[in-house]
Every structure is written in structure tokens, then in C-alpha cells.
């Protein structure tokens, strides 16, 4: 007998609009000033009339297209009724039977080293409003709850996956890929601390018995996970708990109602929450305050044209066109749209994708982290770095010397920064540093031969050692030669030295 974990995620994404979905209040995150971003519409006062935010619908459509969804040409909004203090109208405006999109997919990497991918199917994506925030008094029973309606009416896109995920790690990967894609196309800031991206996980098991039966256990929904770590840990905990539960009760799907559980990040456990009302109990009906929306061919084409190249496609292109490994391509693409633009510029100029990738993922990344900078504010611009690396590609500069120039540029920058002036970090400054420090690779063989001869003459002992069979003796000689030549190609020097010493 063995267990298979079955997971589907419902992801809620806050769209990058200035204002709420049905009114002109700001949708900015502002928990420190509760109830300062409300109006009759988002307070649900009688007589107010919601009007759909054009940008919210546009961003939703853009997302659904990027998620490979079918787009409904006719869509409408419905009222989902339930009572909760953070829902001032007594209903949430959402989409029930005619969501604007359905049947999409997201491709995730299941094994980066092997290049294995998996397609996670999406049931639907629909546009709805967020509720406010209800803060419970944790001190005990009989106390009050505080309600802040700043968030009420914020546009949310709900993306519902099929139960295609098979492990906590896969669920995390899916969420990471989704977040990356949403950030690339610029529809959400996906700030998880501020709740711009959060998810509910539906988890159950398939029990495969020894006689070949497959038994599904009851589905449990874990609500409101707001970190990648939380998603992974909550699912891991839940799987272990459900196995125990199955062994105790042998309850199958349908034997008990669907259970809702919360996640306690401090204790790392899930806990039972109130019994959720059945879907039909939400008594959905079309919202008479809002008109339906139809998507014309022109609008469809216009939004589609706005979508940039998606992360999965960039990874493929970097591997196929620039010769990057799966790992490097993933590391670069994971750093976001701006980073990839910087990388592509450097790669193009230097003419060696792998070299560019090495520099970006090591030298540049290290400096960005140390300086707490984004790539757009990094003092060395891509055209300068690309030009520098081009010299390495063309064997005019060693990698070691290039690193010296790179460091010198940053020192220039830091010195100037302290004096509150701008440093010259241009390509002509690069040339100057190379000249000043004599870093250019000597292609003049006669100059190298001369230095080799001098060093041999000054070091009779290592020379004798080498001639008596101690190969390692060349090390100290090469060190001395390189010190004098600075920018020489170490491989070439080594060969020339050995040739010279091997002469009878």
C-alpha cells in the first residue's frame, strides 16, 4: 500500500491598480491608518452603485492570456452571499457560472538538472473583490473584533488549479512560477507580506491498496497561506495528519463534509476552522448593479500584444540560443524581467552567453546583494560590462584581469560616491584602467619569450628540479612570469615555458 498526495491551489492575486475594483478609493496597502480608504461603495451603503475598473479587467485578461486560458467573450458578475463582519454588503461580488477565463495551464520545472517539466492545468481564473480585515482579540472569549475596511473592494484575481500537484515541493514550485510570471507581465507586485499573493490549498490522499484499489480520502482546504514556506510546511503537515486520520478512521471522500483548516505558522500545525457552508448555500445570483462585459477582437488583440516574453520561454531561449545550462537559465530568469534585460545586453555584447551568465550570477549578483541594489541602479551598466567581457572572449584580457577592472570600477564609484560626485564608469575608463595596470594580454610572443628567459636565468634551482622530473616546479616560475607580464594568457605562458625548459 502507498499514498499519493493530491493538491490543488486557489491563488488570490491583488492586481496592480491605483484604485479599488468598483470605486475610486485607493487600493494601497495601509493597515496603519484603518478605515481611511473607504467610500459609500466599498462600505456597502444603500444607494451606492459599483462601476467596474477598466484597468482591473484589462490586467485580468492579460493574466488569463499569459496563463494560456480560454477567454469568454461574454462574462458577468454574481453575488456570493455570506455574513462576516469584514464583508459590509453581506455578499462578495465574484464570478460564478460565467468566469471570464477557463482551461489554462502553467508549466513548472520539476527537475531543473534533468530539465523535466510538468504542466499544471488551471480550471479557471476569475475577477472578484477582496473583503476587509477582521482582527480578532486573541486574549480570550467574549471580546470584540476590530474591522478595517481599507482592503474591502481591492481587485483580486482568483486562479484555481486542477488537483494536478503531487507534493508540497511541487505546490511551492507552482506558486513560485506563477508569482514570477505575474511579476514579469506586471499585473501584480505579488508582495506576500502585504497579502498581494496568498493561497488556499486543497489537499487529500489517494490510498493505493495492495489489491490495486485507489481510494480518495476527504478533501481538506487549508486557508490563507501567505508564504512559500507556509505552503510547503502546511501541506507537509497536512499529509502526515491525513495519513494518520486514514489509518484511524478509513474515512473516504464524501463520508464527511469538506473540512476547512487554518495554518498556525508559529506552532507549524493546521487546525480545524468553522464548517464552511456548502457552495449552493452562497445563493449566487447575477449582480444587477453591474453590467456584463463582452470582449471584442480588437480589445483581445490589444491586450495580447502587451504581454512580454514569459519566463518559461526565456529559459528555453537562453538554453537553446546562448548555450546556458538549465540551472543557469533558471537562476537568471528567477531574478526578474530587469535582470534578464541586463543579462541579454551583456551576453549580446560579449558574444559568450555562458561567460555573461557566470558574471551575472556570481560577480554582479554578489555586488547587488552586498550593496542592496537592483540591477537598474547597479553602477556598472550592461554596455560597459558587455564591452569588458568582450575583451575576455576575444582573448585580449584574462578573466582574472577582467575581475580586477570590475573591482576597480566599483572602487571608483564608491570613492566618488563618498565625495558626492559621479564616477566615470564608461568604456573609456575601462580602457584607461587596462592601460594603467598593464592588464592587456600580451599577444607579442617575443615579449613573453624575453620574460621567460629572464626568469629562467634568475631561478636555476627550480629549473634544475624541473629538468630532473619535478613537473610541479614550473608553478613558481609561472607565478613570477605572470607577475611581470600581468595580462598574459596563463595557458600560453605555461606552454611556452615548458617548451623552453624541454629544449635539450
Amino acid at each position, binding site marked *: 500500500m502507498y499514498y499519493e498526495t493530491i493538491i490543488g491551489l486557489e491563488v488570490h492575486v491583488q492586481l496592480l491598480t491605483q484604485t479599488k475594483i468598483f470605486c475610486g478609493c485607493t487600493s494601497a496597502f495601509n493597515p496603519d491608518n484603518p*478605515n481611511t480608504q473607504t467610500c459609500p461603495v466599498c462600505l456597502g451603503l444603500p444607494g451606492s452603485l459599483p462601476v467596474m475598473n477598466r484597468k482591473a479587467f484589462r490586467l485580468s485578461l492579460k493574466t488569463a492570456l499569459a496563463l494560456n486560458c480560454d477567454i469568454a467573450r461574454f462574462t458577468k458578475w454574481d453575488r456570493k452571499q455570506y455574513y462576516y*463582519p469584514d464583508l459590509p454588503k453581506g455578499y462578495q461580488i465574484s464570478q460564478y457560472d460565467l468566469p471570464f477565463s477557463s482551461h489554462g495551464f502553467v508549466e513548472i520545472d520539476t527537475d531543473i538538472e534533468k530539465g523535466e517539466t510538468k504542466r499544471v492545468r488551471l480550471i479557471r481564473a476569475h475577477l472578484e473583490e477582496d473583503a476587509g480585515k477582521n482582527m480578532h482579540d486573541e486574549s480570550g472569549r467574549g471580546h470584540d473584533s476590530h*474591522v478595517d475596511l481599507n482592503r474591502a473592494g481591492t481587485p483580486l484575481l482568483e486562479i484555481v488549479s486542477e488537483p494536478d500537484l503531487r507534493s508540497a515541493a511541487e505546490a511551492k514550485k507552482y506558486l513560485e512560477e506563477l508569482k514570477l510570471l505575474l511579476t514579469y507581465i506586471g499585473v501584480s507586485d505579488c508582495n506576500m507580506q502585504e497579502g498581494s499573493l496568498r493561497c488556499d490549498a486543497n489537499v487529500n490522499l489517494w490510498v493505493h491498496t495492495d489489491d490495486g484499489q485507489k481510494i480518495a480520502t476527504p478533501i481538506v482546504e487549508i486557508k490563507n497561506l501567505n508564504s512559500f514556506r507556509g505552503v510547503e510546511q502546511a501541506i507537509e503537515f497536512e499529509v502526515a495528519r491525513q495519513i494518520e486520520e486514514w489509518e484511524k478512521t478509513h474515512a473516504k471522500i464524501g463520508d464527511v463534509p469538506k473540512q476547512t483548516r487554518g495554518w498556525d505558522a508559529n506552532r507549524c500545525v493546521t487546525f480545524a476552522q468553522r464548517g464552511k457552508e456548502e457552495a449552493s448555500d452562497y445563493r449566487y445570483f447575477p449582480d444587477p448593479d453591474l*453590467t456584463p462585459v463582452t470582449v471584442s477582437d480588437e480589445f483581445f488583440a490589444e491586450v495580447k500584444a502587451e504581454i512580454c516574453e514569459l519566463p518559461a520561454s526565456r529559459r528555453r531561449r537562453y538554453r537553446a540560443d546562448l548555450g546556458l545550462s538549465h540551472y543557469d537559465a533558471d537562476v537568471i530568469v528567477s531574478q526578474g524581467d530587469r535582470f534578464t534585460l541586463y543579462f541579454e545586453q551583456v551576453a549580446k555584447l560579449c558574444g559568450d552567453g555562458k561567460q555573461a551568465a557566470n558574471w551575472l550570477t556570481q560577480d554582479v549578483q554578489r555586488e547587488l546583494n552586498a550593496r542592496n541594489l537592483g540591477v537598474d541602479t547597479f553602477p556598472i551598466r550592461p554596455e560597459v560590462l558587455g564591452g569588458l567581457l568582450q575583451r575576455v572572449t576575444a582573448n585580449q584580457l584574462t578573466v582574472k584581469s577582467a575581475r580586477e577592472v570590475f573591482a576597480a570600477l566599483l572602487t571608483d564609484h564608491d570613492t566618488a560616491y563618498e565625495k558626492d560626485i559621479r564616477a566615470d564608469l564608461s568604456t573609456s575608463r575601462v580602457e584607461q584602467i587596462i592601460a594603467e595596470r598593464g592588464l592587456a594580454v600580451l599577444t607579442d610572443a617575443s615579449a613573453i619569450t624575453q620574460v621567460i628567459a629572464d626568469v629562467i636565468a634568475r631561478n636555476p634551482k627550480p629549473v634544475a628540479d624541473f629538468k630532473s622530473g619535478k613537473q610541479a616546479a614550473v608553478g613558481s616560475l609561472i607565478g613570477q612570469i605572470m607577475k611581470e607580464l600581468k595580462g598574459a594568457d596563463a595557458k600560453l605562458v605555461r606552454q611556452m615555458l615548458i617548451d623552453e625548459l624541454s629544449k635539450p
Partner: protein
Amino acid sequence: MAQPLTKEIVTKVAHLARLKLTDGELDLFTTQLGQVLGYVELLNELDTSAVEPMAHVADIANVFRDDELQPSLPRTAALSNSPKTDGKYFIVPQILEEG
């Protein structure tokens, strides 16, 4: 024919709407709501197989507004209808978990 309206259904709907009804009210509303539904039921006599479902009473679509900021209410105004407030939040009784 739709299922007849029973007392159980009215009880459930009342619960969902957070209404507390006495036994007498339950009987009364079961009868009255049943009559209303029976009347609406008359529509089922029409053949609507060739009629497009109506999503909205007004025959219009695509009413949008631009994503432009409008002033919000001052907090005092927003909270002015609240039965209980500390001047910052709406204060409500704590939700009790339903068993």
C-alpha cells in the same frame, strides 16, 4: 416542477440570512413563500428553449470607469454608522465558531 417549499428549507434559508423565526412565523412564511414561488412557477409554462438567458435587465454591456483616484470619506464619516467604534475601527462582537 421545482421541489415544494418545505419548513426545513425555510429554516435553512432563515439561518443563512441570520433570521431567528418563531414556529408560528416559520409556518406563516412557509405558506406565504410557497405561494410566491407557486406564482412564479407559472413562467415554466412558457417555452423558453429559443430564448437567450438574460444576464442583466438593461440591454447594455461594458460599463467601465477609469482607474483614477477619487477622494475617500473621512474616517469619522466612515465610522459614523457603526454601533461601536474606537475612532479607528468598526468594533463588532467576536465571531463564535459554529460547531
